[in-house]
């Protein structure tokens, strides 16, 4: 059975130097600051030190007040999974976050999908363009304020 | 009667027309009305009659083959095959032909118009020229040209030009890749085909197809199995049939060189391809399966044996198509140059040596030569199949099994 880490377990598992990134500890996930400089280090250490080598899924939710990018990570070696949420784009204008493609290649298409449908820009992504919709499509359909 | 003296097919029409004294008047009801002075007229009429008959017979046999192939592949694939239109679906190819004729004839803007139109014609016409030289029976042939073997090999190689023309003229990238593949493949397979046919010529001591058949006391397929194998594989490749169908490669190139062809131009390619299958099967029967010769104690005419073997070889081609996946271009090329080419050389070497030792073999010597050929056949096929073929595949291969996850 894959062990789903609780918020507290995730907090104790991660490297202590990233503690200042934590916004809050929820019962089944951590909420992390959208810090452009340290975020990639944080994910790198999750992958290297904590062996979370499989990025199950990256997705995003539009909560109107903010966008949240949700990472589901799995460790194949330890059979554990965790959830990390990163709020971004509080002002709803050009929300952006660092791309994790350099850590997990599996994020490549998912991040493009998020950019396409939710309009969150991923910095340092090798090929940041629309995935499903056509190039000059107006708007991002999965946003709650999208009017077709 | 002139040049076609031995041809029964020629004689039967000619002697009904001409008052030629060399005709055996006892055998024919004397209906002939054209005087000997107008012999050219009799010749021409005879020729026209047979051209008409052969072209139509070829076209009808293509329709039969289309039906037969679909029925047979249906059986191979555990389904019924065509069965709606006519008894056993026999009229399906006719419906198909009508459909093809009434399709819109598209000419792509980027195409090279003249070559685009010429290519399908060049595909079909040469194939018609093979049928008259095939001896269907001891005397049932239209003409017995003295260089029959060379003629057949030359005519069958024209279609590679047609394929290249079609691929080039379409101005389509799928088509040009198909055309280039065709030239590379068809030219390569000409060579083992020609060399293994040389083995047949050595046995017969003649290039005439009739004499090739007459020389086969033991059918060449049994006498020189190695040559038969090479020739069969090479003609499959020449016909663009599975597993060598890379020029049209449905799953890769859509339809290869004929991607942009429609209507009757496409129909001509289709026709040419099926007719080439029929013609090549006839050539294989003549070269290797002792043509019209059958068990002589049975009172059955040679034509029957020829047609029976003919249908058998066509069925083998259909069987190939239903069974084999396609080879990759590099594997096909290395099979031709590193496999079949050497095998055909070994074959011709052994045949030539044994013929040099026993130039005029008795029947025991013939059996002995067959034995030698079989030893060489099994040995070289083993060497090429087991030891050398892993090097022909282009990528490493091994015996593979899945392992299971441990609990």
């Amino acid at each position, binding site marked *: *059975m*894959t062990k789903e880490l609780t918020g507290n377990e995730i907090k104790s598992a991660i490297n202590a130097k990233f503690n200042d990134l934590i916004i809050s500890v929820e019962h089944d996930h951590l909420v992390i600051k959208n810090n452009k400089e340290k975020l990639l280090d944080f994910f790198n250490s999750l992958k290297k030190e904590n062996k979370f*080598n*499989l990025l*199950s*899924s990256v*997705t995003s*939710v*539009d909560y109107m007040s903010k966008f949240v990018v*949700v990472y*589901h990570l*799995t460790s*194949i070696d330890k059979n554990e999974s965790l959830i990390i949420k990163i709020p971004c784009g509080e002002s709803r204008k050009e929300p952006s976050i660092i791309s994790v493609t350099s850590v*997990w*290649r*599996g*994020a*490549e*298409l*998912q991040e493009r999908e998020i950019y396409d*449908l939710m309009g969150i820009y991923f910095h340092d992504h090798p090929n940041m363009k*629309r*995935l*499903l919709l*056509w190039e000059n499509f107006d708007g991002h*359909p*999965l946003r709650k304020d999208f009017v077709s | 009667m002139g040049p076609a003296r031995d041809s029964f097919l020629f004689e039967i029409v000619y002697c009904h027309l001409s008052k030629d004294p060399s005709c055996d008047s006892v055998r024919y009801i004397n209906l002939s009305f054209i005087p000997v002075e107008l012999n050219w007229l009799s010749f021409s009429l005879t020729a026209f009659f047979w051209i008409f008959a052969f072209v139509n017979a070829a076209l009808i046999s293509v329709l039969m083959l289309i039906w037969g192939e679909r029925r047979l*592949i249906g059986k191979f*694939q*555990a389904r019924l095959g065509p069965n709606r239109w006519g008894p056993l679906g026999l009229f399906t190819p006719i419906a198909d032909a009508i459909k093809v004729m009434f399709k819109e004839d598209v000419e792509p803007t980027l195409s090279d118009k003249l070559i685009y139109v010429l290519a399908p014609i060049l595909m079909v016409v040469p194939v018609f020229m093979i049928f008259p030289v095939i001896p269907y029976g001891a005397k049932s042939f239209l003409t017995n040209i003295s260089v029959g073997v060379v003629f057949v090999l030359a005519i069958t190689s024209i279609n590679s030009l047609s394929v290249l023309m079609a691929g080039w003229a379409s101005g389509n*990238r*799928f088509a040009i890749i198909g055309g280039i593949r065709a030239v590379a493949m068809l030219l390569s397979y000409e060579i083992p085909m020609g060399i293994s046919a040389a083995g047949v010529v050595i046995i017969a001591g003649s290039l005439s197809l009739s004499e090739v058949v007459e020389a086969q006391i033991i059918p060449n397929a049994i006498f020189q199995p190695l040559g038969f194998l090479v020739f069969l594989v090479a003609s499959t490749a020449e016909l663009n049939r*599975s*597993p060598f*169908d*890379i020029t049209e*490669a*449905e*799953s*890769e*190139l*859509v339809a290869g060189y004929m991607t942009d062809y429609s209507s009757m131009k496409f129909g001509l390619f289709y026709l040419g391809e099926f007719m080439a299958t029929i013609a090549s099967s006839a050539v294989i029967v003549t070269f290797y399966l002792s043509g019209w010769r059958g068990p002589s104690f049975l009172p059955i005419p040679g034509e029957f044996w020829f047609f029976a073997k003919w249908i058998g070889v066509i069925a083998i081609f259909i069987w190939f198509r*239903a*069974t*084999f*996946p*396609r*080879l*990759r271009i*590099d*594997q096909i090329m290395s099979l031709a140059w590193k496999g079949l080419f050497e095998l055909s050389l070994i074959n011709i070497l052994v045949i030539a040596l044994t013929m040099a030792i026993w130039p005029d073999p008795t029947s025991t010597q013939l059996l002995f030569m067959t034995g030698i050929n079989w030893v060489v056949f099994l040995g070289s096929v083993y060497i090429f199949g087991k030891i050398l073929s892993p090097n022909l595949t*282009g*990528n*490493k*291969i*091994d015996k*593979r099994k*899945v*392992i299971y*996850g441990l609990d």
Partner: protein
Amino acid sequence: MSTELVTMNIGPIHPSTHGVFRMRVTFDGETIIDAEPIIGYLHRGSEKLAEERTYTQIVTLTDRMDYTASMTNNQAYILSVEKLAGIKPAERGVWLRMIAAELQRIAAHSVAIGFLINDLGAWHTPLLYLLREREKILELFEMMCGARITNSYLRPGGVFMDAPDEFWPSLNRFLDEMPERLNDIENLLTDNEIIVSRTQNVAVLNKEDAINASITGPMLRASGVDWDLRHRNPYDFYDKVSFRRPLGTVGDNNDRYLVRLQEIRESLKIIEQCLDLIEPGPIKPEEVPFLVRPGEGDSYVPIEAPKGELGFYLVSDGGISPFRCHVRAPSLMNLTLLRDMVIGYKIADLFVTFGSVDVNMGEVDR
């Protein structure tokens, strides 16, 4: 000799792109220099549509994602809803959906293998053999729920109707016949010289790259990683049945074919065990309302779909329809490395590799 590279658009309409997939491929002669997958031709906005449907209505949307494996799509979605709403499913319902899911896996793998061999150039023969078996499964589905492809069989808490009496003998007959049919297929294909030489050591994917690119399912197992969510994270009653996980040794196209073929055999075993363990009882708890209304929160339950890890990330705001529904589509993620896998190989290998990845455009584009 100066040569020119050729750039070709393969698809969206092409005999072997399995739907409306498009690749912009650059060739040097016959060798692939570059390949860029372009998708989105079948995008129907399922995730947006889900936001305005009730939880039960969304089941029909999931059918249309991976349309060769509707049952497992239903299963992934229903498991996520059950976790979100805290519904405890009825036992018989769970067994029924496990049987349905495993039958669906056999059907989906049959399609995958059949079309892979077709991409190799076999003239439909193995494909038709396998589709004949799939047809029997679809007939079983028809008995179970009245539909063949878009089943919508599962409901929160179980399934919507019990399998009829005539279903069980038919299923037993299928289980008896299938191993023999598989032997036929294996005799025809597994040691076939052409298939072996075309697929072995082509498009090799090693373990680390596969994991790093979030590749899951038979593709990951073909690379030798023992990661099957039915075994590592048993959902439903997969912890009560035993089965083996076939793993590849090299991670090439041949391994991907072999792994799928052996997984069919394991699925047959699972169904047999399910038949022993299933007992009469309700197929769905009485208390589950038609209009599921979970509390606020989110849930993600990954399952082992025929193509890989499939999961629905559902966010609820307490309403009757999800606030956000995201599909973790295995087909999409398995495409990530397609470009890297085919570069340097021949044109013909491109289609074989694409076939061995086994994507379904309905799921890629959603």
